[in-house]
């Protein structure tokens, strides 16, 4: 996997307020980066900028030495962004959600694969066939995180509070997914307010104030 993310002089403006400015970091393959900061310090904004959803007020984001705006669709192919919303449709079952989300990103998956990835996060039996609106918060988060299994080809993972609402067992399963991805040469950038032990070849962190 070819992965190198460079951020320089990045600034974020929300309304009139400047959340951060002059942010620099370089992330190479196998790096786990935690974004730290209080509520409202711009953690989600930074993740969305790295995903290409929000335009930076100033500065550059480069992926393998090319600005992400120029890469366009090829960059979006390399990114998996999970926001704090789960992006699940209430009326569909977890399994339907997973299949359709994978297909939207151009990845055809079999029902058995979808089933397996849900099972590995502790969703099984009748639960995977129920409409998502009947599931608990934690179960919804698990269903959203099951998509990690299909996005291993995307070298850059941007996870906004991946461990929120999860029980210890599910947290271990997600931590394992993240560790495997890092070993394969991916880059994982995440935010969390929980202390979770994650193993990683390289580490970085950024503190937003």
């Amino acid at each position: 996997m070819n992965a190198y993310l460079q951020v320089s002089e990045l600034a974020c403006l929300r309304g009139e307020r400047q959340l951060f400015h002059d942010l620099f970091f370089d992330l190479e393959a196998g790096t786990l980066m935690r974004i730290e900061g209080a509520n409202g310090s711009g953690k989600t904004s930074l993740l969305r900028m790295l995903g290409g959803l929000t335009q930076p007020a100033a500065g550059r984001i480069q992926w393998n030495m090319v600005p992400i705006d120029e890469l366009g669709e090829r960059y979006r192919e390399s990114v998996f962004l999970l926001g704090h919303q789960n992006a699940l449709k209430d009326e569909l079952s977890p399994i339907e959600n997973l299949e359709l989300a994978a297909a939207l990103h151009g990845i055809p998956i079999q029902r058995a694969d979808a089933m397996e990835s849900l099972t590995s996060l502790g969703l099984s039996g009748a639960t995977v066939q129920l409409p998502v609106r009947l599931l608990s918060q934690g179960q919804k988060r698990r269903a959203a995180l099951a998509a990690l299994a299909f996005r291993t080809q995307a070298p850059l993972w941007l996870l906004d509070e991946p461990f929120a609402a999860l029980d210890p067992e599910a947290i271990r399963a997600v931590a394992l997914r993240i560790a495997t991805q890092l070993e394969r040469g991916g880059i994982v950038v995440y935010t969390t307010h929980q202390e979770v032990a994650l193993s990683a070849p390289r580490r970085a962190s950024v503190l937003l104030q």
Partner: protein
Amino acid sequence: MLLSIQALARRDLLLAFRQRADVLTTLLFFVLVCSLFPLGVGADPRLLQDIGPGVMWVAALLAAMLALNRLFAIDHADGSLEQILLAPQPLSVLVMAKIAAHWLSTGLPLVLIAPLLGLQYGLPAEALWVLTVSLLLGTPVLSLVGAIGASLTLGLRGGGALVSLLVLPLYVPVLIFGASAVEASASGLAYDAQLSLLGAFLLFALVFSPWATAAALKISLD
């Protein structure tokens, strides 16, 4: 790319099917408005035939408006719109798939039921036929143009009211030529010019709207 387009269209149609009540609301609204006028203005056949085309087209416009907030608002609220923007396909193509699914679930039912409702106004057989064709050409334009308005007002407070102010003026040309095609055929005049113009609107909207909607969505989600 085909896989993504199919997946998105299939997802939206599946959701429309699971939430049939929402889709039926639009259709019932159209049926009720079209049926209220004959009850309100009385049973004078000449008067009904005169106002029929206009009333039915206005009802179709309002029904299309009613359905617009379903297009992006729910996807925006649950975060799936973000994932659509992150998909490695041109956004305008994905937007087109969404609009197509939206028209199939809200526009097409109106077209299919319109000839039946036209009978209440005593429209002759040919005018009923023209009404159906004009709606078939016109309702996709309503969905396409509406999508621009819906994407611009995404996430705004009172977006529902704002979208009607934005979009209704843009619906006027479709209303004028749609209704006048039906009127012309009811009075035995040629109507192909109006239908050709509706077709031209449709082609123009097909080219322009997905692009404009995609741009507006990117701004709304920034």
